[in-house]
């Protein structure tokens, strides 16, 4: 699974993109976010306030209960402030 970070989430986590292999129990967005927090102190700090985090799965906006799996592209970013 590929995880992408944008804007201040990228700065806080310290990488723009990483390949991860979460355990099989991680089946939806909520569980993935919980699991990502355990990867280290920077991940934990970046994801401390989930109200400021938006998620896309395979380039579509996703909600906490949406499914995620091994081949997916998951992106985490702040609320958009485009144009």
């Amino acid at each position, binding site marked *: 699974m590929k995880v992408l970070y944008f804007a201040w989430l990228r700065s806080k986590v310290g990488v723009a993109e990483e390949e991860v292999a979460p355990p099989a129990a991680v089946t939806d967005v909520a569980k993935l976010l919980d699991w990502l927090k355990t990867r280290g102190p920077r991940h934990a700090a970046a994801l401390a306030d989930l109200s400021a985090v938006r998620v896309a799965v395979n380039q579509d906006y996703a909600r906490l209960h949406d499914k995620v799996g091994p081949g997916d592209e998951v992106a985490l970013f702040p609320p958009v*402030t485009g*144009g």
Partner: protein
Amino acid sequence: MIRVQREDFDPGAELARLTAGNHRIGGAVSFVGLVRDFGGDKAVRAMTLEHYPGMTEKQLAAIEREAGARWPLEASLIVHRYGRLALGERIVLVITASPHREAAFAACQFLVDWLKTKAPFWKLEETPDGAAWVEAREADDQAAAKWRQG
């Protein structure tokens, strides 16, 4: 038609190309967004627009399709820039063309409202106090929400 690009665009040339030869068009509405010198209270000198390559194109195409389904459009165009943009530079262009001016206005405003709230862009503003990521503005979410009721 959508484009996401670093380079500037020419609103007049885009309009001419989009409407050329289509005699069913009675009105074309264009919106050009520019970098202005206040984001909230701070003096903005420039900004860098980050986006999510791939998702941006996918979402813009979906929004444009939705506008075409809601209003009788003969043509539409979204051009959105990313990267560093100085004061006064063009950021985004939206053009909608229809037999009826009411449809062109409504569709253009719909697209601009959605771009501001749903397109995966993030603004990093350069101010005298340093660079800062812009926070989402509630008024923008409300402007987009009114279309969901429609």
